[in-house]
């Protein structure tokens, strides 16, 4: 498989922008509708065994859909009004993964501003993506978010990290 680094990077930047802008429908469309698809934010340490240990988020597609729909009700108070977010992605590393998937790692820094809080929130960590090539584009089979502070007390995490 010839890996088109440029195209993969562009996908990551688009995914980040849609998440930043709370563009739920377009962001959800980037996911691979597959039994094993997972949006994952481990808790306490990075190498969580999801069968035996708690995560902060371990969403399959149905749970993720519910997560997005719930915010749209206007009753999810942490996102009412919605966070304003911009993130930078860098140190991108791309390799061939298992089962025809592409494995991508990248560091990120995100700034979140909540309308009712004066101080910005800063989030840092590393993303691990599993991408499935589809035509000229990609679908996310996994996005795993390794937060630097996943072993510390944490404020609400309700924007799309």
């Amino acid at each position, binding site marked *: 498989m010839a890996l088109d680094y440029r195209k993969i990077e562009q996908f990551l930047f688009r995914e980040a922008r849609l998440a930043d802008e709370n563009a739920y429908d377009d962001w959800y469309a980037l996911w691979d509708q597959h039994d094993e698809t997972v949006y994952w*934010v481990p*808790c306490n340490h990075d190498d969580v065994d*999801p*069968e*035996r*240990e*708690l*995560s*902060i*988020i*371990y969403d399959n597609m149905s*749970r993720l859909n*519910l*997560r997005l729909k*719930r915010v749209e009700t206007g*009753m*999810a*108070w*942490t996102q009412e009004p919605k966070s304003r977010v911009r993130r930078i992605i860098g140190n991108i590393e791309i390799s061939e993964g298992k089962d025809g998937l592409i494995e991508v790692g990248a560091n990120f820094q995100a700034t979140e501003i909540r309308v*009712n809080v004066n101080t910005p929130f800063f989030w840092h960590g590393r993303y691990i993506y599993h991408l499935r090539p589809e035509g000229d584009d990609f679908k996310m089979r996994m996005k795993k978010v390794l937060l630097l502070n996943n072993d510390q*007390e*944490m*404020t*609400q*995490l*309700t924007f799309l990290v």
Partner: protein
Amino acid sequence: MGNGHAELDMRPMRRKIGMMATGEWDGKVDADAVATYQKSMSDFYGEEKAKQILIDGPAHAIIFPNLFIILQELRWSVPVSPYETYIYYAPALLKGAPDAINTMRLREDEGAYGPAGFQLADDIEVWQRNYSGLDARMNEWILMSRGMGNESWVDEQGATVEGNLSELNQRTQWAHYKDVMTGKYS
């Protein structure tokens, strides 16, 4: 229960309905795992007692001053300053139960609690906004009167019982806190 402890006793309602806690797992975990769990409960407690335990279900209680047992979750709060409180949480897993059941409990806990859960994150947001409200110079009280004046009764173990939606737990906790902090026991 005294000393600031309280429980929302759901047993009368649950006994009336008669549904076992395992019934709430339908569709979330395969039937074989549920059957295995029920059998191991029966083997340990005997069939009648096991059934009663599963019908009565988990607790919804406050252990003074800061431990909360909320169905399958344990939660404890630690005040850090007048403006900051840490809330720690952990799901209670079932020892010896099939893995699928405990994995389901992990997923349920993630869905409800934690920084990204569907319940606690928003609850905390409301508490934070209450604190902003307390900075106001008027109307400074938080009302925790839900359930007051509703029917209450004393159950067979001598505990005062109110309906399931009551804020009895919160009132009990803070009433005792006031007694402790104003030197009633010193």
